[in-house]
């Protein structure tokens, strides 16, 4: 729930308010981006506890760094960039012992009770297939599919975000899509591609 008087404000205005120390503006910005950031992190690391901690760290960094935001990129790109930086740090620090994949395992188990059982089973099958196919992708491929197909970011923003040339972004999204298509056509035969 966004703070009422700030609901209509643009992202840039909220960052400016945050830079002035306006906690209400920050809260609105937080509410606006928390799900996006959380799901972005979860799209790469399947650990809900770590994702929660990273989300908190990201938003604290937004609070502290709001004054440095120059408006040269979209606010979403800036915040996703912070999230990515912290996420990659966390991945590097993570021990070999893999934690649970509760979040992703549970993610597709939600079914609408209004559906009839046959349709529900069919949808669940489709969802399971997509889930398994996406799980075979590399983290980089999952990431660009998330950013391009789910968040709908332009390739220029993705390039800024992942610190890669725009042509790399375009080809990476294309090959991620190809990889996903192959995984969907040959379920359970795909290997993780680095």
């Amino acid at each position, binding site marked *: 729930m966004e703070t009422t008087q700030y609901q209509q404000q643009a992202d840039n205005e909220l960052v400016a308010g945050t830079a002035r120390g306006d906690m209400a503006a920050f809260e609105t910005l937080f509410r606006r981006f928390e799900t996006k950031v959380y799901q972005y992190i979860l799209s790469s690391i399947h650990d809900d506890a770590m994702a929660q901690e990273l989300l908190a760290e990201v938003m604290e960094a937004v609070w502290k760094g709001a004054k440095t935001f120059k408006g040269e990129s979209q606010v979403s790109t800036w915040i996703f960039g912070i999230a990515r930086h912290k996420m990659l740090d966390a991945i590097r620090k993570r021990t070999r012992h893999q934690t649970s994949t509760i979040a992703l395992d549970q993610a*597709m188990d939600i079914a609408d009770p209004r559906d009839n059982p046959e349709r529900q089973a069919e949808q669940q099958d489709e969802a399971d297939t997509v889930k398994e196919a996406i799980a075979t992708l590399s983290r980089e491929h999952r990431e660009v599919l998330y950013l391009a197909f789910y968040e709908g970011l332009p390739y220029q923003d993705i390039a800024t975000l992942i610190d890669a040339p725009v042509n790399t972004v375009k*080809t990476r999204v294309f090959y991620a899509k190809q990889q996903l298509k192959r995984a969907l056509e040959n379920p359970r035969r795909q290997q993780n591609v680095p």
Partner: protein
Amino acid sequence: MTEQSNISESSHPTVTLLPFYLNGTLSEEERQEVDRHLAECESCRQELEEMRSLQVSVKSYFSTLPQPPADICNKVQARILAESQSEKPHTPTDHAPTIESFGTRFQAYLHSIFSTQWAPALAVSLILGQAVVLFWTLTLPATAPRGNEVQRPGPVIERSVPQAPVPSIRRQFHIAFQDKTPEHIIRRIIRDLNGRIVDGPTAEGLYTIEVPDSDAGQLETIIQDLNKKRDVIRMAAPLTASSQ
């Protein structure tokens, strides 16, 4: 799904733009370039349809990822406020959190009550008065009878010095109210808790409230209950180690 894995960027130069054609983020010039190519390339039209279908699946999948916990914003705010307070207590910095409307008004209200010039003198007088009364109470049994009064044997009535009540353990926590929360609601909330303001409001609108409590679990429950009143309370959080 159509088999279309052999399409390549070299023979279809706009194929890598298709994801962004689909998400509507291409420039007008790029979009027209893709449109021109699509008009004459069956393979790319198939590729586009295939991509559209995959996009639906991908969106559907990512949309089912879990939501973050509802209280994470409160936790982060509490951390920020506590950090801000411990760094420069009661001193607004150029990046200290502020709640301009309500915080400023309520601070002015408290200031008007407690900052009058006679308040310190009155406080000193009251303390001195209490000290005199206490001294008199303690020393009264030892004083000699005055005048020609005769002391008679009789029942001894012990004049017991009233003992100070055992102080209950009082616990403190931070609270910040929403901008629009009226003062009478704030007073009622604090009264209902049998609490009192022991510090604040800080520049960021943060109060330190003390409540009688003998159990840390009770304080946690109080804070949880307060955090449910999102219409009037921005956040409530225990004091951090640095702010205690």
